[in-house]
């Protein structure tokens, strides 16, 4: 499959207007939506992730590229829905109860979308019950929780406990993150994974799901 270099570059360069116009032209020219995602958009976000790990890109560049990707996806999503196509894996993400911070969560959501996942963003101040409801209603493969305050971190454990009580814990992988969160804390509360940054979250989600598939 041929990569659309213009689309690839516009996402890597964080040019939302260009990404949208190139996508529009490609779709009008008969290129299949999923082909654009798989051959151009996901590789572009992979490159963005690589640049972030190499400390050449930083959070602002991640957001600009995510914005460019989203701008292109706005044209593609309706076409996928109409044809019944879906992304292979679905992730539910939210900032936990009592916490209103959303920047980190938004970056992760953006990177996950860029990584080819369907992302359901529950927003901020999300109660354990809301996470459980989302798992029941949307059947995600992964639940990602974010907390930016030490005082709200306990909500992560409460949510994991709520998933267990509801009998849906084993249906999902649970990832946690946020400034005060640590690998040790993630282990203590029974999460499946922890990432200290957005790019790491995408890789971790892929690894966890690959591990399940193996």
């Amino acid at each position, binding site marked *: 499959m041929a990569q659309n270099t213009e689309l690839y570059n516009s996402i890597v360069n*964080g040019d939302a207007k260009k990404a949208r116009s190139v996508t529009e032209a490609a779709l009008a020219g008969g290129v299949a939506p999923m082909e654009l995602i798989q051959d151009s958009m996901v590789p572009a976000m992979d490159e963005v992730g690589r640049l972030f790990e190499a400390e050449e*890109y930083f*959070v602002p*560049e991640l957001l600009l590229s995510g914005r460019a990707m989203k701008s292109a996806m706005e044209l593609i999503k309706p076409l996928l829905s109409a044809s019944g196509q879906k992304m292979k894996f679905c992730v539910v993400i939210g900032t936990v109860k009592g916490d209103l911070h959303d920047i980190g969560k*938004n970056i992760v959501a953006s990177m996950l979308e860029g990584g080819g996942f369907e992302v359901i963003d529950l927003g901020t101040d999300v109660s354990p019950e809301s996470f459980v409801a989302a798992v029941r209603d949307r059947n995600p493969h992964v639940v990602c929780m974010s907390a930016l305050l*030490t005082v709200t*971190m*306990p909500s992560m454990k409460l949510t994991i406990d709520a998933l267990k009580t509801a009998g849906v814990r084993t249906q999902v992988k649970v990832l946690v993150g946020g400034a005060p969160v640590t690998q*040790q804390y993630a282990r203590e509360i029974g999460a499946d994974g922890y990432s200290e940054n957005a790019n790491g979250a995408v890789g971790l989600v892929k690894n966890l799901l690959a591990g399940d598939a193996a």
Partner: protein
Amino acid sequence: MPVGADLVLHEEVDPEFSRNNGAALGRVIERTARRWKTPLAIPLMDLRLEKIDLLARIGVSQKDAEIFQFTSPLDRSTLAALTGRGASYSCPGSIARDQALSYIASISALFPIGMAIGPFSLATRLMRDPITAAALAGRGISPDDSDDVRLLFECLRVAEAAVQSSVRSQFAHGARAIMICEPAANTAFLSPRQLKAGSDVFERLVMQPNLRLNAVLDSLRCDLIFHDCGELMDLMVEAFATRLHPVILSLGSSRKLWKDARLVPSDVVLYGNLPTKSFYSDSDMPVEEVVRRSEELLANMKACGHPHILGSECDVLFVPEARNAILAKVDAMMAVPSTAGCSLLADS
């Protein structure tokens, strides 16, 4: 940083009452300073107050203010209401803050310090995606070409007015120094890639508003304490230290203060910077590690000869189930200077 004030506040029978009652809050701040034997009466950190008071001017309730964000450029009447000299509003927390300052100012053994969120950090809390807007501005996109950039600069303008108003009120109630907290002025919000390429976005968004604020403090003969606990570039530390020239520069645990000393004039005291955000966890940060890091920091600062106050990287919030763990580490940190035979002042 007020690691002590929040912990002491939660020893009150009704912490929320005391937070919003000037007399009670004043006593909390006094007890904090005396408990950890410092003349610096560092206030309770509550960086919501300026946003609450600002948005009250356009009828946003205190309850809604916390989550309220502008989503599009402001119309003229909103801008005028937010920046005008009309009736200002002080929420209970702001009134308590000011009354507590008056109380502290009456105690000769204590140095009354006020606190306010910095203009850039407040601006980021007024809009949904400040990072993208800053990144676009950093690429040279002007407010005329982008609603995001236009909104960012409008939010910055109203934020600057709000912070100046807060600072003047605190000074009028007895503050002799104001701690300006700019946690958002960091490399998550401002791209090092852009700054290294010569973008003036840090100058326009952070330095210029803070320089104007500093001029206000100078006119009042009120000292500046500048706090930024985020991940920073050297050029940011140097700019804060040399151009704002605070009496105290407080930095987060990502910085090595003894290395930062080369960037900081010798008459600017460096403050911090134990990783108190992880004090809640005995597995991640046992007491022994707190002691080791405190000793290492003190020794390194003594070796480099730069004035330093040992303290926390930021506020340590009260975590109910970890209260004892946190207190044990704060006490251990504060005990190190005397056990190490160190003559430097330690502060919480």
